[in-house]
């Protein structure tokens, strides 16, 4: 499944991306400090480069026209 998730690349390229994913998992896991910390490893996205992953799955953005309401500290104090 992870060897050719979106086509466009040769098996050798895709395997290279997979190996880089393994390096990334090791780096991410090296910061785990205790029980309950997140852990990372092979899943359905391991054959995608970070760029491919972002182009496919990270496509939401806050609206530029929106000015999100920020609650005031005074109001928060009152409700607490």
């Amino acid at each position: 499944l992870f060897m050719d998730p979106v086509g466009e690349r040769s098996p050798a390229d895709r395997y290279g991306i997979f190996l880089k994913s393994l390096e990334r998992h090791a780096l991410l896991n090296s910061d785990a400090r205790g029980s309950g910390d997140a852990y990372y490893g092979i899943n359905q996205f391991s054959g995608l480069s970070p760029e491919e992953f972002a182009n496919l799955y990270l496509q939401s953005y806050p609206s530029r026209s929106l000015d999100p309401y920020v609650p005031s500290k005074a109001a928060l104090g009152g409700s607490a």
Partner: protein
Amino acid sequence: LPSRFDWRDKKLVTGVKNQLDCGACWAFSIVGAIESRNAIIGHPLEDLSVQQVIDCSYLDKGCNGGSTDNALKWLNQSHTKLVKSSEYPFKATTGACHYFPPTEFGVSIKGYEAYDFSDYEEQMMNILINVGPIAVIVDAVSWQDYLGGIIQHHCSSGHSNHAVLVVGFDKTGDTPYWIVKNSWGTSWGIDGYVHVKMGQNICGIADFVAFPVM
């Protein structure tokens, strides 16, 4: 506030979806919030049409991306009634907007609210409990490799790129965390869910919070 709260315990959250190669997390997130809110106010829990939002929300770009607040703005302005998912199924591609007669079953919203709770995650807990699951936009770059546990590193605020749905929280353990429903299928993460540490705006989870008023 309780130390643990999860809308799934009340059977008011629909199943995890899979957006496949369609970049419409924003639509899955908003439709999930509407499904739950509609059930919380007394209607049956129904899978509503994500494809309808993808095809029809002209403020967004379908499978090429969008924003949760634009989707809510469109739903509010157009008074669109979301039909059942079975009536307008997900196709993982952007298509032509399909219109339904006014007599057709559908769920509409009366308004929406959006907040920046980056310094006020306690308020976010309040909203979650009193209103329902809430749509948020997070930095999900490191989520590519996530298998389980509580995300507390390698995730920044201020770089929002992925919309998800917060359905609960758990503060009973050493590390309190938000319970977050994703749209990458049940084989990803913890049966399709991810846990994100509470209290430090990890992944920017409190930067852009939005929910429908119904």
